């Protein structure tokens, strides 16, 4: 159990520090890297509590796809120029004192809540959960995802569909005058369409239609 605890604290520490670094770091590329680090440590935490499927999915989806996409986007933008724009806002400086007050208030209020949590006696410890070792994590998830939560699962599909439609509507432009490759016409091209054999009379030449 000691090793478990040690690793838990190591990964948690890394996760929190990298999360802070994501927001603090001035270089956007660094931020994305810290984000990846954050994802990785969280997936480790998932694996530690026995949710290996979630941990792996986390790695594949967030690190493999989302974060890499972020990286592409960030690298395509002019980072140096943005830096000036984002951090030298003149207006916002006068909001800092009020902002600090508000955030301190919320922080302390949340501490009150957490303080209450600590003394709540009947909170279930995670280790007490009985887990069926026979059924794999993936299997168990699938068991409820396609039964009890089928409607939520389907609705999530709808959400993704809407996101897709939205992305298309907002970004897709039909540009005129762009030359495109037409696979269909390329493949379906016959010899007869492309080549014409003409008998050229001497001293007359050939006249093309176009």
């Amino acid at each position: 159990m000691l090793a478990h605890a040690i690793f838990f604290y190591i990964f948690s520490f890394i996760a929190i520090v990298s999360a802070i670094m994501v927001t603090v770091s001035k270089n956007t590329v660094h931020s994305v890297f810290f984000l990846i680090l954050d994802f990785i440590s969280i997936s480790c935490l998932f694996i530690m509590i026995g949710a290996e499927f979630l941990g792996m999915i986390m790695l594949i989806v967030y690190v493999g796809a989302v974060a890499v996409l972020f990286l592409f986007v960030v690298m395509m933008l002019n980072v140096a120029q943005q830096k000036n724009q984002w951090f030298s806002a003149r207006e916002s400086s006068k909001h800092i004192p009020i902002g600090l007050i508000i955030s301190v208030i919320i922080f302390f209020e949340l501490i009150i809540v957490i303080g209450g949590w600590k003394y709540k006696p009947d909170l279930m410890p995670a280790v007490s959960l009985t887990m069926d070792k026979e059924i794999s994590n993936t299997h168990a998830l699938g068991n409820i995802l396609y039964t009890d939560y089928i409607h939520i699962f389907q609705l999530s599909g709808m959400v993704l569909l809407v996101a897709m439609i939205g992305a298309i509507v907002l970004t897709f432009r039909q540009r005129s005058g762009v030359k495109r490759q037409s696979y269909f016409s390329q493949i379906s091209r016959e010899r007869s369409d492309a080549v014409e054999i003409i008998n050229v009379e001497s001293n007359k030449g050939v006249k093309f239609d176009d």
Partner: protein
Amino acid sequence: MINLNFISAEIFISVSIMFLLILGVFKKNSSSLIHNLSIGLLLITGILILNNYPDKSLTFFANSYIIDTLSSLMKIFTVIGGALVLSISKKYLKISNIFLIEYPILILCSILGMMVMISSNDLIVFYIGLELQSLALYVLASFNRDQLKSSESGLKYFVLSALSSGLLLYGCSLIYGFSESTNFNIIGNALKSTHYGLTFGIVFILVGLAFKISAVPFHMWAPDVYEGSPTSVTLFFATVPKVAALTVFIRFLYVPFINMIDQWQPIIIFLSIASMIFGAIAAIGQNNLKRLVAYSSIGHIGYTLAGLSVATNEGIQASIIYISIYMVMNLGLFSCLFMMKRNDQFFETIEDLSGLSKNHPILSLSFLVILFSLAGIPPLAGFFAKFYIFKSVIEQSMYFLAIVGLLSTVIAAFYYLKIIKVIYFDKEKEKYDTDHSTWLKVSLAISTLLILLYFIFPSKIVEIVSSVTII
């Protein structure tokens, strides 16, 4: 095997969305067809709901989805509202060059999301529904992507809404932590203590919801988004999502949080008072009609919240009546706005209305009726709506709320009357076009008549709504 009849409307609308999408992709230039089809499909959905109108509450999917009189009634409002919005905005879309197949489909998606929200009996289902509708709304807000204002409004809405969703989710997790369940009924039984954690959970959730219905002080997005979005989308924003959000509000307050009434009641009263006063005061300085509608909708939301705060069935029913009458009034108002068109250009400031009565007497009369009703002048429908609210509030001896409400009505009357003054007494301007679509005319006529003649059949409406009993 669960009885799918009762959720056939949701299934039907999901299938329709996919069908329309495929049809739109494969058939060229099918915008008009898709538009008309979506109206028809929405109406069929409405009929399906009506056909399976429940007489008691039924739950599905492990108690996470509920069909009762409240949900069915509100779904019918939503669906009909959506169909009307689509039908009157066709011409506007064509002229604004945004007549695409995605528009009605996104509206359908958001309506599906609202239906899920309305019927949700579980935090997760609720959240998925909420996201479904909001996601569609973000896209709709920036639908006119070539216009800076539209894109801006979409972005603003998206960012702020994300923040509020975050707060909402945080509240949900707090609630889950304390009640060990996401199911509303179980939460309702579990939440009995007055622990700060619970209170915080409630506050976070209420803040998220208040953002969705744009109650003060979580309203800041509304004026900008209303102004920037295409007018047809503004109309949609101002009417349909409010119905859904109000239902969720009712559901949250009176199912999971019913035992925490001491905690949430002051919050709701505060939101209500702040919205009523702020909506009335801020609207006075507005010149853009869409912005003005935004502030007026903030004010009207204040009155509906006043109905919710009293914690009686009468109050809830009053709120439901209020929101439905409000929907009718807004439909009428926007029909008028759609008619303010000259040479394929729409006008939306108060000055553009000046002297309208000289050139367009009938349109001006409708304006007059609708604005009077919005101001709550008897015997128009808007008066009855307010009357029911105040009645239920006073019955519970919440005199302060009633007095503030009445005072803000007086202030609000000022800017409605100001518009009427501009219409009737200012210098006339050029004539507007009169080639409006039949749907637009019919919708304006119906909404005006409904407002005007409501006093003849108030008991009918009250009777229908009185079947909604939550407590």
